[in-house]
């Protein structure tokens, strides 16, 4: 899609980077008080931090429900990593119901190894007598030989069921201990063990309502985690901005549903629209496209205006055709004008909104090239007056322009659906709709005119202006920034409260307006307390888990108790994991697809 609006943060950062002091100093904008920037609640999870992020949630559940790690994971996978939901089920229905549903055994054999001895045991799967050392008893109490368990695990992992491998016993719904799976499978099939590991790890992203892969192509390897509100727009550290809810481009104040419909509409209509641009001419009065009817070069618009197809100029109604050269038909049918069918009207309506949307998207694209010019202008100004003058108003103005332009352009598809018949026909009376549409369009138009003013100001060659005129432009830009920000906010309020808020069904949620633009996700840092590590044995000490698997798996559990800092050790610790293990740059199914 070439209409994609994306303010790349990389460039934005670059713009600020050599002037560190600019950050947060935009107090000439609406913020009168300087507030220290609070860390974003939106986190980016990289291949280095996915394990840590998962462990963080695991630990919470392990502590609160006091159970072992793989059981905590089984619970969390069942509840799609929604720890709050899990806790509320625990409170409402109790531990046994919670456990039974998810396949966690309520009573664990506390000492799973005592029953095993050197005596021979009958395995009910292969029907062989095997030595007690070669069998494994799961938490549910079912005991089979290691060969059979391994075979079972391999079949299940290959079937893509890694996240919930059930016990082999008939009608036993208990989920197998992942440590056992890992250790047994890695002995026979190390690469499959890796695949298993990867599935478990990625469950944190794939089964988690609050975490999603960044939709960048090629994929940047990151996932984004939000808190509280999934209806938001985020910017990944790779620079991509997107709607967290539908993973499409950021489209607020359009709802996801409206945006999807709009994209489809644009695709479906593009041919018609192309056809129209060839076969229609805009009416000189109302600017709607008018189709030529037959060979007659005198055409009339539904608004009543007649005009000459050849030159596009307005004509009088009764006559003038003798003056149109080549005109031969002597008839003029007025009813053609009146009977413009509904379909056509709908199309014109769509074209109006599409044209406005397109106009703003196009302006946005043109303005994007302003970045360079603006940088030059600021440099010129600094050269002119080296006494460290503050030119933040220039860059602030530019980014205010981008943000407002964006809101404005997406407000057109919003309006198309809000006041059209497609979605809310039964929700409002004609009268209500008219009142609401007027209210909205007033705000939209105010915003529009101020955005255009701001655009004009920014494009002026103010770096060549004499001092006084420069100060004038500066004041204008600063004022327009405040005004457009306020108007954006008001337009959103109108949409959220007066328009969408009054609807019966709240399926149309929009990402809220952020004066400072789309929120940037910050790197996740996990602090773990030593206390957490000691609760519950994450891995049974006498479990035969050897080699790299354990090493790579263990880190945030045991052994980190001496660690007080959080990010300092992160990289070297995870290096082993990311490098020697597997590349998380791509989601599993992409890898598999290759």
């Amino acid at each position: 899609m070439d209409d994609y609006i994306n303010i790349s943060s990389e460039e934005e950062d670059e713009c600020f980077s050599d002037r560190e002091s600019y950050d947060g100093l935009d107090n000439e904008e609406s913020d009168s008080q300087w507030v220290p920037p609070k860390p974003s609640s939106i986190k980016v999870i990289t291949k280095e931090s996915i394990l840590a992020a998962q462990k963080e949630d695991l630990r919470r559940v392990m502590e609160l429900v006091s159970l072992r790690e793989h059981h905590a994971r089984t619970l969390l996978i069942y509840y799609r990593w929604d720890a709050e939901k899990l806790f509320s089920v625990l409170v409402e229905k109790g531990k046994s119901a919670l456990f039974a549903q998810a396949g966690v055994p309520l009573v664990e054999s506390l000492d799973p190894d005592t029953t095993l001895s050197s005596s021979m045991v009958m395995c009910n799967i292969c029907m062989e007598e095997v030595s007690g050392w070669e069998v494994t008893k799961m938490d549910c109490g079912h005991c089979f030989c290691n060969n059979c368990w391994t075979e079972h695990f391999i079949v299940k992992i290959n079937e893509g069921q890694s996240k919930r491998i059930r016990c082999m016993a008939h009608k036993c719904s208990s989920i197998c201990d992942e440590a056992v799976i890992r250790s047994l499978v890695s002995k026979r099939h190390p690469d499959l063990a890796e695949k298993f590991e990867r599935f478990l790890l990625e469950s944190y992203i794939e089964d988690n309502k609050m975490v999603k892969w960044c939709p960048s192509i090629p994929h940047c390897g990151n996932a984004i985690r939000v808190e509280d509100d999934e209806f938001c727009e985020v910017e990944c550290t790779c620079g991509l901005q997107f709607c967290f809810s539908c993973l499409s481009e950021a489209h607020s104040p359009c709802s996801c549903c409206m945006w999807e419909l709009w994209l489809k509409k644009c695709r479906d209509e593009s041919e018609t629209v192309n056809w129209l641009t060839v076969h229609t001419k805009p009416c000189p009065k109302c600017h709607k496209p008018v189709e030529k009817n037959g060979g007659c070069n005198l055409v009339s618009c539904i608004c009543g205006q007649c005009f000459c197809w050849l030159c596009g100029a307005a004509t009088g109604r009764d006559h003038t055709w003798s003056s149109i050269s080549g005109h031969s038909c002597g008839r003029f049918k007025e009813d053609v004008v009146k009977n413009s069918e509904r379909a056509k009207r709908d199309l014109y309506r769509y074209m109006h909104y599409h044209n406005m949307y397109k106009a703003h998207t196009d302006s946005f694209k043109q303005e994007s090239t302003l970045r360079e010019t603006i940088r030059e202008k600021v440099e010129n100004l600094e050269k002119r007056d080296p006494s460290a003058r503050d030119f933040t108003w220039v860059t602030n103005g530019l980014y205010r322009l981008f943000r407002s332009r964006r809101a404005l352009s997406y407000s057109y598809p919003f309006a198309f659906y809000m006041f059209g018949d497609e979605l809310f026909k039964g929700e409002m009376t004609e009268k209500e709709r008219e009142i609401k549409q007027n209210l909205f369009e007033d705000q939209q138009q105010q915003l529009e005119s101020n955005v255009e003013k701001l655009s004009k100001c920014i494009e002026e060659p103010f770096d060549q202006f004499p001092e006084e005129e420069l100060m004038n432009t500066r004041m204008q830009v600063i004022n327009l920034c405040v005004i457009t920000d306020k108007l954006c906010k008001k337009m959103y309020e109108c949409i959220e409260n007066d328009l969408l808020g009054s609807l019966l069904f709240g399926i149309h949620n929009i990402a809220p307006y952020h004066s400072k633009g789309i929120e940037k996700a910050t790197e996740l840092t996990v602090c773990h307390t030593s206390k957490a590590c000691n609760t519950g044995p994450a891995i049974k000490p006498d479990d035969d888990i050897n080699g790299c698997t354990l090493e790579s798996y263990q880190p945030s559990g045991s052994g980190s108790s001496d660690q007080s800092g959080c990010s300092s050790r992160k990289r070297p610790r995870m290096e082993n994991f990311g490098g020697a293990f597997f590349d998380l740059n791509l989601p599993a199914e992409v890898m598999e697809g290759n």
Partner: protein
Amino acid sequence: MVDIARVQKELQECNKDKDSSGISVKLKGGNTLTHLVGSIPGPVATPYEGGTFIIDIVIPDGYPFEPPKMQFVTRVWHPNISSQSGAICLDILKKEWSPALTIKTALLSIQALLSAPEPDDPQDAVVAQQYLKDYRTFASTARYWTEAYAKSSSVGIEEKVQRLVEMGFPEGMVRDALNAVGGDENAALEKLCS
């Protein structure tokens, strides 16, 4: 790799009590343990009573970690069994299979399915509709099919016909030959070869 040892043990185990259970499993032919034929008696007090039902069993490579593939050879009128192909809709043969189950337990489950159809999860929609809407007609059709296809006389014939057809003789000729010699398979074979 099929666990040959286990299949062998299962066969021994199963045929030990075949007189009491009525369930038997035999090799399909040749020496391969991967293609078997099971036989279950129709449960009493059902339209299938008195019939003997032949089930084709294919043991997949992953057995017992993957379910055996089972299908009716004997034609049967039942909501969960295709009246055309003999395909069976039974959870333990699919998602609910457990390596702890055996060929015999699977056959027992099929027998149980004959007693207790599950029309809400049908394999044969036509039969299921009839079962739900017109049980009397369903029961009489099922009984008729049992009579026609699953009675000892017919089952013997059908098996013999199948075997001889597999040897490469046309079905019509096989039936004629068997009829002529009173059902003796060897005599029929001689007749066919002569």
